[in-house]
């Protein structure tokens, strides 16, 4: 019983992190993704905020799933998600003020993050609470990882640093994360400009395709 549950969670995790990743497989949430990932720190902040909303919305919607009638489900989802995002915005503004200053513009964007609505519609509204929670965690982490990855891919060539200003997000204790990889670096500006986001995204997607193809080839080779 417990082991099947564990296997189920492992599968959910795999889906969220790789096979059915919000960005790399579902190609959702590109707007916040491309807008905020000028640095790995920004990506991390946005990812964590989105994950919080995603988990909360999955939980809420899954527990209300029997109440919600199919005809009005979409407005209900939108209302709930908008409420959650506004809550996060308010709380961040109050207690994570510096980070809110950096990400402030993008927090309301989470409302339009179609990944959250998509998970609500296709998963949370049909699954028990515990699975919906795990899905939120998995999808959230998957999204956060991509945001951080894209942020890093853009930040390193773009400004020669990694996790710059991480202390604003995580507190002074995390100052060690802030790396300056190249001193006096003038920067490959394209990467922190919007076109760079598309470019880096394209290469990341291509990379995933290559890995998947290799894996499949290895799989079928071993099966044969």
């Amino acid at each position, binding site marked *: 019983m417990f082991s099947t549950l564990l296997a189920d969670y492992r599968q959910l995790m795999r889906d969220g992190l790789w096979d059915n990743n919000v960005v790399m497989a579902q190609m959702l949430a590109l707007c916040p993704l491309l807008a905020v990932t000028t640095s790995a720190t920004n990506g991390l902040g946005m990812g964590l905020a989105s994950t919080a909303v995603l988990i909360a919305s999955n939980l809420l919607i899954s527990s209300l799933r029997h109440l919600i009638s199919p005809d009005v489900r979409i407005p209900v989802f939108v209302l709930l998600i908008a409420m959650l995002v506004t809550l996060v915005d308010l709380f961040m503004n109050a207690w994570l003020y510096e980070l809110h200053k950096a990400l402030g513009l993008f927090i309301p964007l989470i409302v339009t993050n179609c990944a959250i609505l998509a998970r609500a519609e296709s998963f949370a509204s049909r699954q028990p609470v515990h699975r919906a929670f795990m899905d939120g965690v998995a999808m959230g982490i998957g999204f956060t990882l991509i945001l951080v990855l894209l942020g890093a891919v853009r930040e390193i060539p773009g400004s020669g640093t990694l996790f710059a200003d991480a202390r604003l997000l995580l507190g002074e204790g995390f100052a060690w994360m802030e790396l300056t990889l190249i001193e006096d670096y*003038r*920067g*490959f*500006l*394209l*990467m922190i*400009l919007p*076109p760079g986001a598309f*470019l880096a995204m*394209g290469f990341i997607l291509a990379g995933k395709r290559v890995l998947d193809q290799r894996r499949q080839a290895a799989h079928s080779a071993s099966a044969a």
Partner: protein
Amino acid sequence: MDVTPVVSGPHTHIGNNVSKDMYWVLAALTPVTLYGIYLFGWPALNLLLIILLAVVAFEALSLRIAGKPLRPTLLDGSALLTGLILALSLPPWAPWWVGVIGAAFAIVVGKHVFGGLGQNLFNPAMLARVVLLISFPLEMTTWVMPQPLFSADAPGFWEGLAITFGMATIPDAITSATVLDQAQAAVLHGAAVSEGIAGHYSPLSGLLGYQAGSMGETSALLLLLGGALLLFKRVIRWEIPLAMLGALAMMSLVFMWLDPQRHAGPGFHLLSGGVMLVAFFIATDPVTSPSSRLGRILFGAGCGVLDYIIRIWGNYPEGIAFAVLLMNALTPLIDHYVRPRIYGRTQRGMPLPDKVAPPDRKPKAPPQRPLYKKRSKKP
């Protein structure tokens, strides 16, 4: 006698091929290149060689990754041409890594990501130039006055190497703004454009190219000669160069007439910046320009108009690369909507009416349908 292969006609051919075209363009660019090397000396030659090497290396790498055979594509001259055009459009004393990054963008992102030769949407060299301009504004706007080889002030071989490999800084004394920079600065100051370019520009210097600028953009005369050779060999066609230069001239004439304080004349605009190089060698890139004659005319005119708009109202003194890329992006659209009229059909694809048969003897015509529903299904 034995079975011959089952092939459709025609069984004869005019005898051209893709690499012949490429080598003709390379040949037409040779005088400009040699002159550019003469004007800007060893650093320019170094940069050119580095770019050509890098281009071939990246081409080979991309082909290897894509699992395509190396030889035929490496030998077709297309990568070398991209490299040469890129080198000709960079500041001649740019450091080596600018060239290498440019080559990487041109070949990998500009060409092979789209599927290789013939598939790219944008001109690879122009794409690389724009990426470099956006990313490295300092390096990409450091121009020098011509320092002809073996002249007193010209850097020697070792100095040239030092400049290219970033070991020596370019002395401030010989850096210079391009004439387009001067014109823009003058207008921003509120001075007359003629004052701004006085002493920096004359039609003769424009023609001969004895002014600051990139290696291949300076001598309008040699570029014209190369273009004429290509036109004569029918490697390129007249529509794009003529429409582009014509549109630019028209724009500058109109605005000079409206406000001669702010706007220089057509001669200045045609002979400065990268106009000539682009008109004959870049905008005419077959892959990224429209297929129909009218389409090519629209494309060329669009390049000219956009270039003028960016030069005058944009933030960059020269906008030809942006203009070309914008029009490249429009090319599929132009190709979709601007098609030659099909024999026996109207421009919209309806069968022509039969004019001669009198109505009483005309058999009842079946309902006429247009040939194509406008359905865009580009592979």
